[in-house]
């Protein structure tokens, strides 16, 4: 009886704690949004009374309206769709190559001595410098854009995989050896899970770079996409389109990063680190 009661109080305490956590979270969100809301209101007011000329800095409501209208006539979705497609294609290709090369070089020290200097040399070239060459080789179409994004994604993912594999605790590997695991089993049962956190960090920064590179790729010449909206707004002197595009980039970029973060939290529950 007493046990059951204790359990019930435990549960109550648990719920209470959860509520507390939720309230605290809401609090931080509230506090964090005071200044942005203030700024946007001031911006709106100043735009309305004509302090900011609308051909240079349109009011927030105008920008929202632009997005809304693009949404109505359907162009918004095709722009978002095209850009997202490019990022994901580049992200997948870049990640795929990074995984293959990174694991190979991480596991085999001889391969590292063979390949790593070359990769480090390539890394010191700012990736955007490749653009003219890619355009020359592949034209202005999709392949050159996706290749660029893939190059951007590749390096953070690759570097994190290699350092993740190198950073696996030798002591844990010994545990595996004590149970007579083969090299393949060691990789699957110890090295891969142990280097997963580092890999996921690489994925997130790779995705961030992917979004950066898609802007560059689309600025270079595109007939569709959020980056195209940037040049379009510039050429047509429509700052609301530019700002709308910027906002959309921010939102979608944040959304995809949040998805990866969710994946990270799901798969790394075991990690012993300070809870945020």
């Amino acid at each position, binding site marked *: 009886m007493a046990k059951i009661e204790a359990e019930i109080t435990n549960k109550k305490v648990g719920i209470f704690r959860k509520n507390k956590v939720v309230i605290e979270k809401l609090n931080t969100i509230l506090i964090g949004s005071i200044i942005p809301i203030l700024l946007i209101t001031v911006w709106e007011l100043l735009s309305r009374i004509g302090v900011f000329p609308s051909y240079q800095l349109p009011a927030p409501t105008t920008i929202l309206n632009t997005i809304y209208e693009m949404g109505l006539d359907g162009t918004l979705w095709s722009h978002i769709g095209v850009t997202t497609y490019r990022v994901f294609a580049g992200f997948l290709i870049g990640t795929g190559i990074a995984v293959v090369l990174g694991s190979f070089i991480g596991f085999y020290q001889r391969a590292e001595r063979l390949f790593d200097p070359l990769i480090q040399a390539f890394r010191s070239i700012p990736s955007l410098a490749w653009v003219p060459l890619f355009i020359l080789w592949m034209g202005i179409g999709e392949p050159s854009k996706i290749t660029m994004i893939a190059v951007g994604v590749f390096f953070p993912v690759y570097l994190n995989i290699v350092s993740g594999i190198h950073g696996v605790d030798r002591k844990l590997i010994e545990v595996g050896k004590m149970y007579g695991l083969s090299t393949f089993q060691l990789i699957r049962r110890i090295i891969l899970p*142990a280097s997963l956190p580092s890999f996921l960090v690489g994925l997130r920064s790779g995705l961030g770079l992917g979004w950066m590179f898609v802007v560059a790729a689309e600025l270079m010449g595109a007939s569709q996409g959020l980056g195209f909206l940037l040049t379009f707004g510039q050429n047509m002197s429509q700052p609301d389109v530019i700002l709308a595009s910027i906002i959309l980039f921010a939102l979608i970029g944040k959304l995809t990063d949040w998805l990866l973060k969710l994946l990270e939290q799901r798969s790394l529950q*075991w990690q012993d680190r300070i809870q945020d």
Partner: protein
Amino acid sequence: MVIKITRTTIASMARSHSGLESGEKMTLVLNKVSRSFDGVAAVKDVHLKVEKGEIVGLLGTSGCGKSTLLRTISGLDTGYDGVIEINEKTSKQVNEETGFIFQEPRLLPWLNVLENVMFGLEGKRAEKLDKANHILQSVGLAGKENLYPKELSGGMAQRVAIARSLVTSPEILLLDEPFSALDAFTKMQLQDFLLDVWKKYHTTMILVTHDIDEALYLCDRVVILRGQPGEIVEELKVEEARPRNRGSEQLAQLKSDILTALDLNKQSVY
């Protein structure tokens, strides 16, 4: 190097050899095992014979090569000279008859307690679960199966580590200062648990420790390593029947013998 051989040494050597004469099969034999790192010897010319079911303590000050010796026995370290035989077969790799309990728990942080214990098991999942649950019960961790290593205290983590190495029922258990990081109470509990295990399975154990009381409480025989490179300087038999009284006079006498043996360290001329 001068080594004084005390009366106890001679007596104990004679006694340990008598085990051989009776025709008992040796579970573990080290013949002139030496190990150097980059030309610097860490242990030198170690001869050791361990009978089945014996608990042998390797005692010595820090840095005298106890861990190094244990790793050569385990097969984790194969860069030694000399011969190691397990069950009368030369063994120079990880042997499935040996289990290792490290100084740190070394649990895999992405596996929960149950999965960690099952890590070294092979076969059907139901059987593995059965064995793991059984052993977790006996180390007093029933109900903690789903916790992750980050949620365990040091003592609990080490229990899981012990469970993990016992669940495969190794014939020889190698322990490298397994309790040195634990508080005194947990330490005593786990020492008693180890004796329970021994009572049940007669597991041969090689226990590395720098804790004289621990060695005297657990071991049938205490081997004292000394110097750099580490060499065996003494062997003592602990005849007292188990369960031993931690404060008994006999043990106190042996302890003072061991202290004398370790004191030789200062008197010997390099």
